[in-house]
């Protein structure tokens, strides 16, 4: 039988800070990064909802405007012309759902690793969607940390949900 040790990851707090200060500082930094990242996606989600990204032609306007700004022969233009623009309604819905999921996941520490994976997916698609610049590199790398590290167990709902559903991959 597969048993899961739910107490394998530390809980962030004063007890940890007193016992292992360096580790606590590292964990605290990662948690701050997670909250910052979550807020980044929360702001972007609110903006998307305000602009009706999922139910108007706003994404079409954004993609068309951005297409005019990039190299027409490049891979980003091909991706925009071949996929994003023809499917802008579906893409608008997916973007809105993914952005909100990342925000909720990272802010609450809920399905945190999955939220990190979605953030990587979002980052790659921002780049392919013609918005590539160097800022996407740290954004992608930070998202990778949320996949690799148990930040939802340090602080968040994952720890409690993992104890309740130990076989579920979502709360690992």
């Amino acid at each position, binding site marked *: 039988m597969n048993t899961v040790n739910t107490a394998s990851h530390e809980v962030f707090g004063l007890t940890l800070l007193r016992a292992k200060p360096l580790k606590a500082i590292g964990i605290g930094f990662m948690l701050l990064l997670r909250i910052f990242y979550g807020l980044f996606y929360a702001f972007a989600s*609110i903006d998307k909802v305000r602009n009706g990204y999922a139910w108007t032609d706003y994404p079409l306007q954004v993609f068309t405007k951005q297409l005019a700004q990039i190299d027409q022969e490049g891979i980003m233009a091909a991706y925009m012309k071949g996929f994003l623009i023809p499917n802008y309604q579906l893409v608008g819905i997916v973007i809105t759902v993914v952005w909100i999921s990342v925000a909720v996941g990272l802010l609450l520490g809920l399905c945190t690793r999955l939220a990190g994976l979605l953030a990587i997916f979002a980052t790659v698609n921002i780049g392919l969607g013609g918005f590539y*610049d160097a*800022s996407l590199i*740290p954004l992608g790398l930070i998202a990778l940390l949320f996949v690799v590290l148990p930040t939802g167990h340090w602080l968040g709902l994952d720890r409690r949900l993992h104890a309740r559903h130990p076989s579920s991959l979502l709360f690992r």
Partner: protein
Amino acid sequence: MKSVRSASTALSVISLLSACARPDTPRVEGPLAIEIPELCTVCVEVLRCEGPARRAAYVLDEKDAWAQIATIWDYMKMFFAPKTEDFRDLTVYELAVDLRTPLSARGNLEVRLDVWNRRVELPDSIVVQKTGEWLAPDGAQIGSCTILARGPDREFKRALEAAIAAR
């Protein structure tokens, strides 16, 4: 459920704050004769300006990698207060009457984009983005400007650089 409460409180406070910190005057809206996407960090913009006494090309460079990374913070700030300005590296070329041949070049300059009032504040002049007017710092008319399209802008920039380097 402590984390749910904390997160919702934080978002409520942030939403309230976002209503503040706006400039007093209304933002100048398009259509603009000179369209410069202030959030595009990898765009090169070339303004070609012409007047009876002077012709010049203003080349606004793309941002370097660190400046591009710093825009993550810009995006965060935009939720609380709209972006009102941006700064870009600039090279100024004085042009001959054919509007293609550079007579001289001045680099390592900086331009301020007044995003709210839609003005390009150059070291020696101002371009009104709504109309394309090219004004002296005292407001006197010098001439008018156009912005080169994507593609031709980089080609023109390369041609100017090559012509200056060939001297």
